[in-house]
């Protein structure tokens, strides 16, 4: 039954992708396809990365409200980036190979995320409100430190940082596509291999220990993969707060199963449909009056509030 739904989602994504590639081409089809093909690839990567990161994070933290973005993963990325600009100075920073830079950022982020969020998961497991508060405060703190650093640096350096700190789906950094694709596919592959372990980890600490999957080890592994995925997505489009939540909430609605073999690909497909379909609609149908990030963040924010209210009522 879920297989059919996955198939339908795949068809929907294909339709969106074809519409995105082929509608409204003026001039050379070849040029348009190359140009749009790169953007399409970037959107699909971001979509899959955000979706899988959100679902995995919700599995290991045992709740349906928190996502890496809400807990400040992407704020951590922007902080690392800002700190690098401050430490090296803008000219030196811009001369670095962007691919290498991204790899370094992703590595640093993995280390920091495992330390910070690993600790948080250990201490806050089972206490959703405490985790939510700590996460939100942590995200604000990371953003404030970033803000402080950005105020101290000179305007030309600030411009470099700023370019990386706003979400923009329409102008994804396509020159980073190669490295991103590599990192992202690697992380997604490893996440796929973890699918059965994630099923067990989702049962909670006692049951997963009993079944031979110690939660700490699984959480650490998942956090590493999540960090890579968020780093890739943030490097490509900048931070997005509520997109992951929107996708994960829709995924549980469309695919009400515990099996990550269904949830992981399902969430990636749903995420792709939203991003590619949304981008197509905004670019071709509504002629770009509103950026996609604003629409997605608005919807995601509403979902966040609804889930929070539902959680509080229970």
């Amino acid at each position: 039954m879920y297989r059919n739904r996955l198939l339908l989602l795949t068809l929907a994504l294909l339709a969106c992708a074809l519409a995105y590639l082929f509608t409204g081409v003026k001039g050379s089809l070849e040029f348009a396809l190359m140009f749009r093909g790169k953007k399409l690839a970037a959107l699909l990567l971001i979509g899959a990365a955000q979706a899988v990161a959100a679902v995995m994070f919700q599995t290991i933290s045992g709740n349906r409200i928190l996502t890496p973005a809400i807990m400040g993963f992407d704020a951590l990325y922007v902080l690392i980036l800002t700190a690098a600009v401050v430490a090296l100075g803008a000219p030196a920073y811009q001369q670095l190979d962007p691919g290498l830079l991204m790899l370094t950022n992703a590595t640093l982020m993995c280390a920091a995320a495992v330390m910070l969020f690993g600790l948080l998961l250990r201490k806050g497991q089972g206490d959703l409100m405490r985790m939510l508060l700590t996460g939100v405060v942590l995200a604000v703190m990371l953003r404030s430190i970033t803000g402080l650093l950005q105020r101290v640096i000179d305007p030309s350096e600030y411009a470099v940082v700023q370019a990386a700190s706003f979400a923009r789906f329409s102008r994804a950094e396509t020159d980073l596509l190669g490295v991103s694709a590599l990192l992202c596919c690697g992380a997604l592959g490893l996440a796929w291999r973890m699918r059965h372990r994630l099923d067990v980890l989702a049962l909670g600490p006692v049951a997963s220990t009993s079944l031979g999957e110690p939660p700490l080890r699984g959480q650490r592994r998942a956090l590493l993969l999540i960090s890579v995925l968020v780093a890739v997505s943030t490097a490509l489009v900048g931070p997005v707060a509520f997109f992951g939540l929107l996708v994960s909430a829709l995924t549980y609605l469309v695919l009400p199963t515990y099996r990550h073999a269904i949830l992981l690909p399902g969430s990636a497909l749903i995420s792709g449909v939203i991003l590619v379909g949304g981008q197509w609609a905004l670019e071709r149908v509504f002629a770009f009056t509103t950026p996609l990030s604003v629409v997605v963040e608005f919807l995601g924010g509403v979902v966040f509030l609804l889930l929070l209210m539902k959680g509080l009522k229970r």
Partner: protein
Amino acid sequence: MIEVQNLSHDIHGAPILRDISVTVPKGGVTALVGPNGAGKSTLLSLMARLIPRQQGRITVDELVVGESDDKDLARRLAILPQTVHAASRLTVRDLVGFGRYPYHRGRPTPDDRAMVEDGMRLFDLLPLAERSLDTLSGGQRQRAFVAMTYVQDTDYLLLDEPLNNLDLAASRALMARLRDLADNKDRTVIIVLHDINFATAYADRVLVMKEGRLCADGAPQDVITETLIQSVFETDAPLRTVEGRPVVMV
């Protein structure tokens, strides 16, 4: 045989267990009893590797808790969970199926599926097989958890206060099933119980704990006396012997 050697445990500097050594041989039902804060649950959690060991050593047959491979331990020792996350997305069959995970690691064989059906039949869960966990009553859910640990097919089963939130009928039914597992399926059951009367009625052996120490150990009818109740629980509940077993008059 589960062997605990010189086990001590602190939480935030407060000693919870002080130098405990005890051996639980294979077979039978062993109950851990004692007042609140005696360290029963901590001892069980350490055996179950739910919390990291600080000092001392715990072995399950030839396996060392905290050192041996988790996959091997999962085939030797099961822990009964009180709740699972994601309960709304799990059916009873899904949950019981997880019991085979230590063997198939996500790819169940026909044998695994057959054992899951067997387990559900044994625990009268077949009529509930497709129900989602959070539509079940507390007693039915507990039965599903026990069925999961049953199909895990381990020699040892650890339970931490499983009678919490169960009514009298469900409590008695659960204890009778555990008794049956010990008597007819060669399982070794170690259980933390709050209610001494349940311990004396269903356990072969009681380990009485107080303030992080083991203060009595033996068959219920030998160990549970009025003096023990007074010294360990610090209350003067009278004790009667009914049909050969001690009953605390609460």
